[in-house]
């Protein structure tokens, strides 16, 4: 992993068109500004991981639940 030290308002440039700016530092919280092309998806990693995890749990479907759901009716 490349490690760089930055101060407030300093910027890291990644490739041609991604820039990370250190906007504020408050104790153990760092606020970063990210400018990137619109097609680049940016997520908090823990959110993305929780979606992955939820999907893998949601995928453990069974024929039994399939049958049970069929018996449920919307009112």
């Amino acid at each position, binding site marked *: 992993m490349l490690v760089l030290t930055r101060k407030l308002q300093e910027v890291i440039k990644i490739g041609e068109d991604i820039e990370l700016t250190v906007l504020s530092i408050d104790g153990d919280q760092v606020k970063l500004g990210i400018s990137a092309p*619109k*097609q680049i998806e940016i997520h908090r990693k823990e*959110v993305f991981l929780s*979606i992955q995890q939820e*999907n893998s*749990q*949601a*995928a453990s479907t069974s024929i039994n639940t*399939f049958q049970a759901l*069929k018996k449920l009716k919307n009112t």
Partner: protein
Amino acid sequence: MILHTKFEEIIEICEEDILRFEQGLPGFEDEKHFVLLPMEGTPFSTLQSVSTKELAFFTTNPFLFFKDYDFELIESVQKQLKIEEESDVLVQVILTIQEPLEKSTGNLQAPVVINVKENLAKQVVLTDNKYRTRHVLLETSIVGQEG
């Protein structure tokens, strides 16, 4: 073509039925083709992988269960899915089934957005922190039928 579903159904589908998830789904990045199969008489559907028989999700229309559900689709996603009008869009959320069934949850943080005109789809991760991965379906919304 003939498709064997995870739930032991054999159905005939054509090219126009196939939804293309160009990036797969989080955790299933290689799965790019699914069909959405409504479960007749219920508010549910199955989202069945075309290439992997064993991969299928249960989904539902979130607006049936969560009346206030609301999110804005960012421009880049609109572009990716080639969405031009709101009426092109179908939204489903993936369910995680719990016991009892009424406690099952919907993933409102990552709705499946489908452009029904182009058959392009994507599980969109919302960034506004308003919703979580597990919202219990309202117990009053579904009741068991006899038998």
